[in-house]
């Protein structure tokens, strides 16, 4: 089997509010798949359907070769899940919860549990009510990562973790990547995290799949924004293709560059002489805005043609 997850035209509405509107998602076995979208795009709803917690209104979903709703109990032996907002039982210690979740899932690797506790610097003796959000998140993460499963469903797992712990999380996921056959679906709205970890990415918006592919394939969507202070006024930047939103004020310059135009643009700046330079990778928001512009432009063109 080469596809760990496949959904086709998944539809789900909560009352009158549509959550998913024909969502397609394909995750290949053994890959780390980024699942990106702004708040309310339907990431969590999709994952809940994949977990058999919600029943889809229409469309099909396959998970590890089974039906997520009907075979839920069987499938759950083979997967682990970390919700984006973990609530623990107030009077159970973190260690108890990790063991409980492991037991309910059918056992967990003791050595790995100890190892992860140390790496995530979690005190398993504290009661659930005493943990901060980040620590509650760690409890669920350790329970999931220490269990021997084929598929990890992680719903914004780093929300609440400090940068140091985010780093640990990335390392651990990279190790997972090296272990054979482990598939990870990583939902996130942090592009950097997805860029660092994922083989392929699916971007959704308002319950629909907007883009899917490898990050390189999605590069056409991304622009880097550059702000520089130069030795003198630049010339000829506007003649370069792939440079957008150019704003020159004396020796200060701001522009957004397509990634394949970046090289030429920077050469141009260096020729003039660079005093300071700030380059910003495209944020997910920009990516969405950009995508939104593209689809709108395409829509307008389409309208013109049909006229």
């Amino acid at each position: 089997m080469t596809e760990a997850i496949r959904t086709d035209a998944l539809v789900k509405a909560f009352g009158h509010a549509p959550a998913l509107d024909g969502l397609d998602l394909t995750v290949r076995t053994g890959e780390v798949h980024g699942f990106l979208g702004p708040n309310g795009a339907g990431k969590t709803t999709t994952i809940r359907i994949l977990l058999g917690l919600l029943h889809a209104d229409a469309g099909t979903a396959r998970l590890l070769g089974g039906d997520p709703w009907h075979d839920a109990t069987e499938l759950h032996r083979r997967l682990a899940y970390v919700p984006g907002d973990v609530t623990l039982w107030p009077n159970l210690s973190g260690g108890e919860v990790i063991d409980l979740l492991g037991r309910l899932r059918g056992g967990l690797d003791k050595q790995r549990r100890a190892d992860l506790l140390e790496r995530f610097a979690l005190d398993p003796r504290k009661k659930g009510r005493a943990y901060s959000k980040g620590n509650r998140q760690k409890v669920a993460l350790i329970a999931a990562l220490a269990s021997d499963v084929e598929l990890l469903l992680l719903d914004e797992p780093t929300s609440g973790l400090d940068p140091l712990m985010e780093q640990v999380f990335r390392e651990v996921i990279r190790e997972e990547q090296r272990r054979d056959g482990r598939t990870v679906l990583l939902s996130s709205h942090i592009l950097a995290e997805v860029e660092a970890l994922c083989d392929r990415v699916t971007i959704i918006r308002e319950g629909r799949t907007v883009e899917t592919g490898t990050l390189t394939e999605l590069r056409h969507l991304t622009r880097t924004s550059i702000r520089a202070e130069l030795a003198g006024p630049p010339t000829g930047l506007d003649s370069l293709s792939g440079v957008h939103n150019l704003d020159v004020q004396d020796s200060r310059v701001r522009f957004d560059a397509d990634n394949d135009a970046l090289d030429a643009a920077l050469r141009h700046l260096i020729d003039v002489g660079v005093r300071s330079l700030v380059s910003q990778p495209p944020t997910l928001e920009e990516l969405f805005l950009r995508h939104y512009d593209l689809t709108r432009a395409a829509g307008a063109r389409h309208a013109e043609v049909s006229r």
Partner: protein
Amino acid sequence: MTTLTGTGKLVRLILRRDRLPMALWILVICLILISYVPSLADVFPTAAARRQYADNAGFVALYGRLSGTSLGEFVTWRAGFIPVIVGLISLLTVIRHTRTEEETGRRELLGATVVGRHAGLAAALAATFGANLVLGALVALGMISQDLPAAGSLAFGVELAAAGWVFAAVGAVAAQLTDSAGGARGIALSVLGAAYLLRVAGDLSGEAGSGLSWLSWLSPIGLVHQIRPYSGERWWILTPAAGLTALLAAAAVALSARRDVAPACCRPAPARPRGRPACARRWPWPGGCTVACWPAGPPGSRCSVSCSAVSPAASGTCRIIRPYRTSSRGWAAEPGSSTPTLPPSWASSG
């Protein structure tokens, strides 16, 4: 039955979480009941004294009707409110382990592991049924230890356990109906309250000799009273009590099967997208009174307003309640009425 996979492990989790409160309420109720026996025997040694004590509408409402004057009958009569308390604890326990778990998202954490769709509900009911059974057994043993007849003691334990079972199942149904634990508690408590009031109505009517004493039989609380421990135990009452419990539990499972995790069977209407218009106001009024107005009607973009005028004289307040309507933009008198005028009573009532 894959829908029940993992129920045992979840029961263990409930017992682990609740071991202290559960042990505590079971023991406290047991000790109270056991202490009743010597103290009531002491204070009311004769049949006449017991009958006289129980012949009181207030006590009939609170405890039910006295079936006989033996010590066992008197003790169970005096403990007539305990089934309500057991029912209350049971329904709260079930809701705490079902709807509260869903509301907090912990159910989702568990639902992603190897547990069946109905395991959570089944575990909450099983644990609560079990706790009630333990309570019943301990009460029976306690009563026997006080030299009360064994059959009656057993029936008394069964009466309490049955009350707990029925209302545990009521809690399970209520937990399916709303998406908040608070709402579920409201529904279940209303049912408990109604059951209690039905019994009161039936028992008072029975005491007065009018024909509505059958109302008690409609109430689960009244029903378990009809087991009549120490007074020719009516064991067959167990059948309707257990039947009602099974029916309610089955309804809860059926409702739960029809819905997703987290949302309720009945979806709540969308919540208000804006804050209420600020309605409460004060302004000076001719004659030195201050008129304070506050929203009184059902919330909406227009709100009906009650006004009261406070006199400056310290002697008291002059009050008028007069509905005005206001839109979110401004004030207007009730349609049809002219500019508000000071009623004559204000001047004099000060």
